[in-house]
């Protein structure tokens, strides 16, 4: 689960981490008031969406308006907020359709001496959390890692003990910090790592981490993602979820116990198992088609779930055909076909449907499909089904 920058900063501040003074604004007047309340000569107005690249991003409705802007007066804050709120921000990470901006964060300006990068993620290799730091702040860390891997510092830490003081200092010195900044870094690094553990995060990214003119360390921007599997023990965090930021069909699928990801193609797919679902997308592409989605109905799909799965696939107007790929292991193929035919009648599927079944009771299941009198094409194996499904789009 992702949250907004302002929410991440509020949580980090609770964990003792130093963040700039900031006020959330949902209207142009609130933005103007926020500027006055902060009382400084300048402030930053920041669009709140779950995507990066906001500074370079522009609004669809106002092509000259950036997603993050420095202002020097309450009027300027109001002016920018008027264009930003309710408009659609397109950044390198949002895709062409962009994201609607409903909330702004107005923050005090910082006297920036240096910008660094700080991140915490789970490291598969060491089997635990790892602190990642770099002198190259404000840039995409992936780009830094690719072009100058020697500038990426990694410090795995113990999930029980947290980042130890000496580990924090080692990273600080390797980043070239000195004087009071080392003490500030030791404190901040350890707090951020503890925050990561305490909240079951899957990612914390502070980019840039600002070293101010007087040597202090302050969070410039913050991205926090929580481990969905651990949310059951963090009910307070669940309240921070912003459904406006998520693909509505993905939210609906999740509620029905389905795993769905929308893609750009026109061939819908319904599959059991994540690996097979990914592979089904791959084989569609391999035979010249384009998958419209990833959809895993799981191991024990019933009529309701399969019906819901079809609804979700068909809600995408791009879908011109559907490929069903089921490997019935424990789940018997005839059970799946019963669910499939039930769903077919309930929804009234009009696009071509190709079904590939394999596994337990496959003969009974194929006969059921053939006897149903419905225009369902049977694929004899994975390749045959994929070819027929791709061909059905041109028909």
């Amino acid at each position, binding site marked *: 689960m992702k949250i907004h920058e302002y929410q991440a900063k509020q949580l980090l501040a609770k964990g003792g981490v130093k963040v700039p003074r900031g006020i959330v604004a949902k209207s142009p007047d609130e933005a103007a008031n926020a500027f006055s309340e902060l009382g400084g000569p300048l402030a930053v107005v920041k669009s709140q969406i779950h995507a990066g690249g906001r500074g370079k991003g522009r609004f669809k409705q106002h092509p000259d308006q950036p997603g993050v802007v420095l202002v020097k007066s309450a009027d300027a804050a109001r002016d920018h907020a008027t264009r930003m709120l309710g408009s659609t921000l397109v950044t390198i*990470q949002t895709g062409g359709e962009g994201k609607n901006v409903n909330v702004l964060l107005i923050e005090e300006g910082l006297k920036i001496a240096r910008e660094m990068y700080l991140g915490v993620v*789970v490291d598969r290799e060491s089997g635990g959390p790892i602190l990642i730091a770099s002198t190259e702040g404000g840039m995409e860390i992936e780009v830094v890692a690719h072009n100058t891997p020697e500038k990426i510092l990694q410090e795995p830490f113990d999930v029980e003990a947290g980042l130890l003081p000496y580990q924090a200092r080692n990273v600080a010195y390797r980043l070239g910090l000195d004087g009071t900044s080392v003490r500030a870094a030791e404190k901040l690094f350890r707090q951020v790592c503890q925050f990561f553990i305490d909240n079951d995060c899957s990612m914390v990214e502070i980019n840039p981490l600002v070293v101010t003119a007087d040597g202090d360390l302050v969070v410039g921007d913050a991205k926090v993602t929580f481990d969905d*599997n651990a949310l059951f023990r963090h009910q307070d965090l669940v309240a921070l979820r912003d459904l406006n930021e998520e693909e509505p069909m993905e939210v609906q699928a999740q509620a029905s116990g389905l795993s769905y990801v929308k893609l750009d193609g026109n061939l819908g797919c319904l599959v059991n198992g*994540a690996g097979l679902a990914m592979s089904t997308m791959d084989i569609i*592409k391999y035979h010249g088609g384009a998958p419209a989605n990833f959809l895993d109905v799981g191991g024990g799909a019933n009529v309701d779930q399969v019906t819901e799965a079809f609804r979700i696939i068909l809600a995408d107007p791009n879908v011109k055909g559907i490929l069903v790929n089921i490997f019935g292991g424990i789940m018997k193929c005839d059970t799946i076909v019963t669910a499939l035919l039930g769903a077919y009648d309930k929804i009234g599927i009009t696009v071509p449907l190709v079904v590939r079944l394999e596994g337990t009771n496959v003969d009974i299941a194929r006969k059921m499909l053939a006897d149903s009198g419905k225009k369902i094409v049977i694929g004899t194996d994975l*390749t045959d089904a994929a070819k027929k499904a791709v061909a059905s789009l041109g028909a």
Partner: protein
Amino acid sequence: MSILVDKHTKIICQGITGKSGLFHSQQCRAYAQEHRPGEDVFVGGCTPGKGGTEIDGFPVFNTVEEAIRKTGANCSLIFVPPPFAADAILEAADAGIGLIVCITEGIPVLDMARVHRAMQGSKSRLIGPNCPGIITPGVAKIGIMPGYIHKQGTVGLISKSGTLTYEAAWQMGNIGLGQSTAVGIGGDPIIGTMYIELLQMFQDDPKTEAILMIGEIGGNAEIQAAQYIKEHVTKPVAAFIAGATAPPGKRMGHAGAIISGGAGTAAEKKKALEDVGVVVADSPADMGTAMKRAIDARK
């Protein structure tokens, strides 16, 4: 011979009184009875608070320690719900269970980090979590895979994905290839046993003549495996990597199946494997034939 599982394996299920735990314990017991009639392979289960009872003929114990003492079990199959699964794994390890197979999906990743830490130096081996389990065809099935699709044979199968494992076993069965042992390692970011350890076991197993590896996007375990194959594996290896068409930043069902920052793509994994002589299937429909090609190339 085979790896991990042989005729001395005695299984209990942690979470046996739950719906899935009981169903799959019954399936595993039926598989053992079919292939080794008269032998006691699946010897009971644990559910705290239900010790001393029986469920469908399985004796139930309160603790793993008690179950071992009374049944001689050396393998545990875990179906405990996600919030309690890490504790169940550590209970099994602490009690001295040699092989722990955790099926549970959805365990918090930091719980697995704690398990990983606590199991450093442990004599127990963990397979999973979020995996279909292990099967040595004709000997024992410890997991949720349909037993009949796995034919006895000489291919060692290692896979991150459940249904894709079935697909591969099915394709191999159709062309006369069976498995020595098939292991589902799981699709989570932190797992008990990775490719390399299993590659080593299959390389050392005299019954295994070839290895099929099924990977997916995310992380770099397949790339490390490629390096290991280059240095240590002399048997023919084939592979498939799922997720060539997955967009970056989107989690594809498995918590581990996500391309982050351009790393962990199917293309780079495929290339790393091909560079060390592994036959990599382009299409998921060709996993069985890719294995056959790899074997035939050595003849």
